[in-house]
């Protein structure tokens, strides 16, 4: 699939995927630098705000950047007991556990299904993939109510599992994994079959190692869906002990109205940073894997 790019400079340069700087790129920098700076503002603000001492949080006129950074907001956040006497560390623990299990399980469920759809032959194969492709346009918020009723009927309301189970079937994830596996050569699998390998062995020893970029991509998508999820805690969970950190963050500003506004704002900023940072770190670590998966994302 890699093309010989060094051949492409002969006739007319398309300018696509250049190897170095060229004056023609200046106009793009002129657009992209201000735009990127603008898009970065809220994120810089999260970082700056989280480390502001109280007098800066409530200074007039307000200052965008922190002058004397402090960790006070973070210590306040973890020292605080929520209105229903649940410590913040509990929400964080729930989030970490829920996210970890969701990422592992959705990678497992998605990759086994993609293996069957890509490399196995069975009668319902094309039908099932077609259904999944239609489900790419599934908008979960549209069916909030029937989903609620089903979760209620299954007895999942107010349980730990309601954080995980509904998030596992990810049509986009299965789609990307299957497309990626389609590009893997079949010869290796056939050779393994001749050597007497079972499907499980083929899946584990051949498919999984070769699909790593796609698995990383699905892991990121599952991570983002789970770690940032507010709705599950808000709708399906009553027990404060079972709610997650992202939900706690969203409730911080509403419960700390009035006298506690200054402290509440600082803690909310610190909590926003805690929610945002893992997303950023994981994506930076895995971004090259994501891009190579996206090459196979086409919908035909």
């Amino acid at each position, binding site marked *: *699939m890699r*093309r010989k790019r060094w051949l*492409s400079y002969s*006739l*007319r340069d*398309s300018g*696509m*995927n*250049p190897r*170095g700087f060229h004056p023609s790129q200046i106009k*793009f920098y002129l657009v*992209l630098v201000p735009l990127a700076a603008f*898009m970065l503002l*809220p994120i810089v*603000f999260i970082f700056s*705000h989280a480390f502001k001492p109280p007098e800066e949080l409530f200074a*007039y*006129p307000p200052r*965008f950047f922190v002058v004397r950074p402090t960790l006070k907001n973070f210590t306040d956040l973890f020292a605080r007991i929520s209105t229903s006497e649940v410590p913040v560390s509990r929400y964080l623990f729930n989030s970490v556990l829920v996210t970890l299990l969701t990422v592992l399980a959705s990678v497992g*469920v998605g990759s*086994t*299904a993609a293996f*069957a*759809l890509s490399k196995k032959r*069975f009668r319902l*194969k094309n039908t*099932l993939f077609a259904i999944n492709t239609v489900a790419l*346009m*599934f*908008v979960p*918020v*549209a*069916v*909030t*109510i*029937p*989903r609620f009723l089903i979760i209620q009927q299954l007895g999942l309301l107010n349980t730990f599992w309601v954080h995980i*189970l509904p998030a*596992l079937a990810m049509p986009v994830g299965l789609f990307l994994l299957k497309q990626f596996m389609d590009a893997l050569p079949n010869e290796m699998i056939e050779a393994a079959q001749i050597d007497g390998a079972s499907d499980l062995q083929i*899946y584990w020893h051949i498919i999984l190692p070769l699909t790593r970029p796609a698995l990383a991509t699905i892991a990121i*998508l599952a991570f983002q869906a789970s770690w940032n999820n*507010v709705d599950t805690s808000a*709708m399906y969970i009553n027990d404060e002990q079972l709610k997650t950190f*992202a939900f706690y*963050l*969203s409730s*911080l*500003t509403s419960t700390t109205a009035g006298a506690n506004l200054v402290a509440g704002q600082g803690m*909310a*900023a610190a909590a926003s940073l805690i*929610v*945002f940072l893992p997303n950023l770190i994981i*994506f*930076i670590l895995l*971004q090259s894997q994501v891009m190579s998966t*996206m*090459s196979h*994302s*086409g*919908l035909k």
Partner: protein
Amino acid sequence: MQTEWRSQLSRQWRKEASAYGFIAPYAVLFAIFIAIPVLAAFLLSFTFFDSIQPPQFNGLLNYIVLLTQDDIFMRYVLPNTIQFAVLVGPGGYVLAFLLAWMLAQLPRTPRTIFALILYSPSMTGGVAMAVVWQTLFSGDQNGYLNSFLLSLNLIQAPIQWLQSPEYLMTIMIIVTLWSSMGVGFLAMLAGMLDINPELYEAGALDGVSSRWQEIIYITIPSMKPQMLFGAVMAIVGAFQAGTIGVALSGSNPTPQYAGQLIVNHIEDYGFLRYEMGYAAAVSVVLLLMVLLFNRLANRLFRED
């Protein structure tokens, strides 16, 4: 004869059993949390259901009420949803394409940095970050935007950004666009980088002379599958982002229904008024809108 047929069937079944085993966990979860809810929404939309007594069939009544008597739906929710979806969906999509097109023409390192910056807001989305927006758009003179505009003498008094009907929708659209450079944007960027450079040369020989012609005649046709994937993601994102108005203003309904979208209308009827049958009918309308947009995207980019 029959036994032979049966043994053949069982042999085939045994051969396929492993494939079904691999797909079963996904299929079961898909059925429970995606397929059945969609089907249930459709069925419930023909009933009266208050979640206490079993659903009672009432035919098309919900739809008739929705189209003829639901003043709020017709006056606020539907126009708001269309305005929001068109600006955030196709608007965000065109923006994502243009940004990807510019990034594809930069060397690898700056490209990666810009892609990371543009993608990072979509990691958390608008709703989880509502707290940050509430601080930036805070309505008193201490709000960051207010203070900034006051210091420039652009406004005379602080503005209640998130509580005033004339600004809420604009802010919702900006916030959602800000966080909309997601998977679809990355897919289009990757697709663009994978286009064979020889196509551009061939195009030049055939008389393609400007960048604009290049986009229309070479770039877009060569990456139709990614264009379609990006379009589907943009459409889903636009409708999925519907809860942002409630998250920003802190109330459902939003102030004077200014930011009320169809998703909020569903929650309003389903969870605040317990008219689940009616809410299901609204859900079906929403799913049909998504379907309609997707048909359009398919018409534009499907290869055949």
